[in-house]
């Protein structure tokens, strides 16, 4: 295919961001193999040292290698993000489809409830859930996943309702297709695209929320490295050793930005208006 044939407007952003996202995912996945030092190894001889050839991002207040900790934290953040988005999209899609399929009172009650949960500031809900579930990574996944349910439910319901008005669905009903087959064969395939776009954006938001929780001391517990708790620890040493919070913050920002751009790109791909 010639470069001129390539529909840049439609596929450009995905083509540009997908490799970056893949690099982030691979780095996180291979963390134990590629880190230069153990993220937990203390070395009092090199405490609070700036970036050097042996410690590319410097060392923290206990002499641990910041780069190794940043890479290990990526693994944690991405796992939390993935699981949270899976919980949110799975439950949200079910709620949305039930609401659209049954309609009437079921729809009204479910969606009104979803609207109210949606109204809650996410971080407030996450903080309260964490305080009660207890501070652990597993609970962080659960708390963040719960927060995503209303968003996915609204989206799925909207798409499912549009599908239900199409004539091919009327045809399916007239032919006597059973309800579950309509859901799995006709509605779900149409819902997957928009849910995927929402999932990319939700994932980056999940990574942000996990970091925020860890920053407040409610997520990953030290010595387990997380971008959030590294930034928080680094604040205490920001005058002498700004790299302790700069490095994880930059990694967090870069990851979230890349996934958000990927989300934008996926939206372009799915947008029929850009289809030349």
């Amino acid at each position, binding site marked *: 295919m010639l470069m001129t044939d390539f529909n840049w407007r439609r596929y450009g952003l995905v083509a540009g961001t997908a490799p970056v996202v893949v690099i982030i995912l691979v780095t996180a996945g291979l963390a134990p193999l590629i880190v230069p030092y153990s993220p937990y190894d203390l070395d009092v001889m090199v405490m609070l040292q700036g970036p050097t050839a042996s410690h590319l991002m410097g060392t923290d207040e206990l002499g641990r290698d910041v780069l190794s900790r940043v890479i290990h934290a990526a693994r944690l953040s991405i796992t939390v993000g993935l699981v949270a988005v899976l919980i949110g999209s799975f439950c949200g899609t079910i709620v949305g489809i039930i609401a659209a399929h049954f309609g009437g009172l079921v729809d009204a009650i479910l969606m009104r409830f979803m609207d109210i949960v949606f*109204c*809650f500031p996410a971080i*407030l*809900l996450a903080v309260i859930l964490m305080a*009660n579930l207890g501070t652990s990574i597993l609970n962080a996944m659960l708390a963040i996943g719960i927060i995503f349910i209303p968003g996915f439910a609204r989206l799925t319901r909207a798409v499912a309702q549009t599908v239900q008005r199409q004539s091919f669905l009327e045809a399916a009903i007239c032919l006597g297709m059973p309800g579950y087959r309509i859901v799995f064969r006709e509605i779900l395939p149409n819902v997957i695209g928009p849910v995927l776009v929402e999932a990319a954006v939700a994932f980056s938001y999940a990574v942000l929320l996990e970091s925020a929780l860890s920053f407040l001391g409610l997520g990953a517990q030290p010595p387990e490295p997380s971008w*959030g708790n590294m930034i*928080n620890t680094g604040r205490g040493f920001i005058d002498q050793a700004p790299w302790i919070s700069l490095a994880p913050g930059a990694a967090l*920002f870069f990851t979230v930005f890349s996934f958000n*751009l990927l989300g934008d790109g996926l939206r372009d791909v799915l947008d029929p208006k850009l289809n030349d």
Partner: protein
Amino acid sequence: MLRLVLIRLASFVPTLFVASVILFVAVNVVPGSAARSALGIQATPQAIMRFEHLHGLDRPMALQYVEWAAKALVGDFGKSFQNAVAVGPEIRKRVPVTLELAAIAFVVAIFISVPLGALAGFCHQRGADVVVTTLATLFGSTPSFWLATLLIYGFALQLGWLPTGGYTAFSLDPIANIKGMLMPCIALGIVSSGLLIRIMRTAVIEVMAANFIETARSKGVSNFRLVTAHVLRNAMIPFLTVGAVEFGFLVGSVVIIEDVFRIPGVGSLVLVGIINRDYPVLLAAAMSITVIVLIINLLVDLAAQMIDPRQVRTGH
């Protein structure tokens, strides 16, 4: 018009009720933990039972809720488990601080997002649009607490222009109040403007495609008047309604920003409540943030009905 306002007001009550139930359940979902953290890990089962009986924690949750809600409606949020101080007055002292922070931050966000979003909307699918959209994603991807840390490092520690944190009441020292609010509001405002830019952009694009814009153009309305009187006015309605959701998000982020800048608002009180497992404090602080968000949504809905000429006409 009045009917619409009344309907919207009536729907506020059940929303508030469900929201308070959700919060109450979320806070009380783990039984016994309040007593254990208030009395320490070595507390005997008898001591825990006595504590729970004293604070009514051993009764059914529904009963506890009704009692709490009845008192909360008149501003009585009970007493702190930690120091037996009444929570209500503390909340009333802290709510204005949080409101000031959130309001200024929202104004900052609007000042960033309205011009940028409108620019992107006017230049739809051209260079400026791509630049602004990328900038919006960039802003929205910034962790507020990290931006706050960077601002403190730059403007407080390196340059020494602003305090690293703390709060001075406006009535005591207006200059110190503004100096202290500047960095938290900028950090919150920039992060929130990410979504607001997009909302403004979409709103402008939709209005630009409307028939009445074509009509105005063919009447020979000047470009300046077209933008100010026709496009912006109409784009503000969807912008404000959808923006209210973002304001809710902003009020929520206050929890982190207040912690970073040591601002004594309700957001930092949530964390105090969590750290001390002080349920009356936590519940009151979280509830007041939720009520703020709900009231803002209500006001924005009402305001949108007032600005929208179509709804005014149906009322007459």
